[in-house]
């Protein structure tokens, strides 16, 4: 079963990321990645650029609406996501608690939609 760990950062956390690639908290992420790989649960992961680099598009009544910045107007913003292969949601919550992002922002755990639905989506 696959789960997405969606990592939300505070503005302070994004600020830190912007300036300092040698900050000790990067060591926490490196350790976390190694632990995921060694435990054979890692599928994939991506970090996102800063929220202000986002652009939000809507088409309403046939008209384009383009807006600067991220979709949600909240303090904590999506910073990246990790896909894990795990036997249960209990295991997913354990890995979420170990995620460095959980002690500085928040981590949302959500199962990926079942394969049947994904096939409907891709048409394959």
């Amino acid at each position, binding site marked *: 079963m696959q789960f997405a760990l969606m990592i939300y950062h505070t503005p302070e956390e994004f600020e830190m990321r912007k300036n300092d690639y040698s900050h*000790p908290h990067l*060591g*926490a992420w*490196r*350790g*976390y*990645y*190694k*632990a*995921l790989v*060694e*435990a*054979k649960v890692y599928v994939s992961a991506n970090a996102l650029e800063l929220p202000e680099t986002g652009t939000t598009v809507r088409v309403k009544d046939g008209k384009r609406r383009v807006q600067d910045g991220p979709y949600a107007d909240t303090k904590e913003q999506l910073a990246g996501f990790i896909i894990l292969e795990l036997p249960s*949601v*209990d295991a997913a*919550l*354990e890995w979420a*608690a*170990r995620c*460095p992002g959980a*002690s*500085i922002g928040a981590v949302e755990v959500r199962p990926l939609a079942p394969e049947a639905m994904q096939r409907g989506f891709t048409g394959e």
Partner: protein
Amino acid sequence: MNEIHQEDAHRTIERVARESYGRLVAYLSVHTHDLASAEDALSNALVSALNHWPREGVPKNPEAWLLTAARHSLIDVIRHQKVVLESEPTIKFLTENSTETPWSTSTHFPDERLKLLFVCAHPAIDPAMHTPLMLQTALGLDAARIAQAFLIAPKTMGQRLFRAKTKIRGGGIPFEIPQEPDLPERLDAVLEAIYAAFGLGWDDMAGADQCGRDLAEEAMWLARVLLKLMPSEAEVQGLLALMLYCEARRPARWDAKGRYVPLSEQNPEKWLGSLIDEAERHLAKAFQHGRVGRFQLEAAIQSVHTERAHTGRTDWSAIVLFYEQLLKVSSALGTRAGYAAAVAEANGPEAGLAVLESIDAEAVAHYQPYWAVQAHLLRRLGKTREASDAYDRAIGLAEDPAVREFLIQKRG
């Protein structure tokens, strides 16, 4: 109604709820086997107390008042369930007892909590639910609070508790105190469940296992209740001693800036002497029974550690000996990692690493203290690169930010 009256009533309700919750739930469910209904009835009684006591004053015997109110509520609940035939004997029991109430003026209704604890840790119940069930039925903690400690979604915890209670009601799980030869094993399950609430092995090398950490006080309360009910069980006393030793070190675990301090670097002056003294008394009494078990041995290891407060040093060879006894009865990962760390202190890092290597690699993929100990020992042997790799694994598995920070500092 005056304010003092009201405050007084609220305080009393809080106190009675804390002290009597388990006793009342146990007594109300011992015949019906229906924990959920007993809890509902008691919470109705508590609401009713909140309404009546501030206005009418706190009754002379608050516990008996709650019991009477809860019993009435329970009769209503059972009648509503419409399983008339089945519930008739229960209603009969409840009403019979309500006409003749020897305890309406005293609190001397039978204490059935021991049966309740054995039901919660019954082998037919999923072991992962033993502790949550105890915390809820014996202490009245709500599912959301329990869910926090066990890292489970509150809704899921609620459903699992509900399922466990349904099984107890319908599954013929007896409300009784097990007899020999089953008793030791059954008691062990109860002790395990209480210890799980306390937080397992959180003094291992930077191994602050998070499980249930904020429930330490509740776990100690349960252990005290159990000791009162089974005063001659050595392991019960051993468990209480173990928890007291660990609790005594709580103030030394973090420095003024909130940084994690491992046991070996703790300042013994910060340990709570009164708790250590109490632990020593319990452990000495437990040993008198001549039935050494896992919890007494773990407590003995902690006892050796606390001697540093007087002697200024740690007798690692004594700790190794206790671990060797402990390994004969428990092969838990925490025990084996702790043994490795002790062997390294007594006989050098190579010996400690050899112990670590004997542990199954699959089992430690998720176990942080193993990697913390390994990293520490590799560093002592000057194997810098291997040590860094092991530190990375420990860092990646750490949950407590203070522990993670400590490991990052150590890694360098």
